[in-house]
């Protein structure tokens, strides 16, 4: 039961990855690509969490936490770059 749900979830999140990659390649503008990257980060968290449940190993949580923080910081830095042309003022 749980295993079937996990396999379906893997499939759905992988499809989500493909859609994100498509948007990342297609653009058409820089904010679109940044949004695609941000969504990729969040989807990676989803994938890591599903994988953690699948393996029954709680250590994957640490990876999810790190990805969440790095993803947010990079998105903010990229947006700042678009807004101002530099990051550290």
């Amino acid at each position, binding site marked *: 039961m*749980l295993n079937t749900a996990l396999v379906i*979830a893997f499939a759905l999140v992988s499809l989500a990855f493909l859609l994100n990659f498509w948007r990342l390649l297609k653009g058409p503008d820089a904010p679109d690509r940044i*949004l695609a990257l941000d969504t990729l980060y*969040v989807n990676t968290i*989803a994938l890591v969490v599903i994988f953690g449940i699948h393996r029954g190993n*709680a250590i994957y949580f640490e990876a999810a936490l790190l990805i969440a*923080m790095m993803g947010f910081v990079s998105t903010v830095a990229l947006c700042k770059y678009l807004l101002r042309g530099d990051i550290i003022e």
Partner: protein
Amino acid sequence: MIDILLSVLILTGAALTFIGSLGLARLRDFYSRLHGPTKATTLGVGCLLIASAVFFSLRDEGVSLHEVLVTLFLFITAPVSAHLLGKAALHLKLKSLAPMPAQDDAPSDPA
């Protein structure tokens, strides 16, 4: 019983994550695309994290709440990134299906 609850949470989470990305790929202008990942994906990953918390709490004979941290973190940061992206898009004057709002040429720095 718990298995059913976990499966429902995991499937809902994965489906919402997928729909968020579908919105990112499918909608027509940047400002509409902003909605999918901000809301659907965030709640989707939130569902998955709650499922993970329930799973490990039951398995390891002790409450495992640290998934709540990632959930909270995501719910706090998602609107901030969305706001910044929207502001950057307005700044670059990306075209929109809706009439554009008045431009604010000296961007202030909230949130």
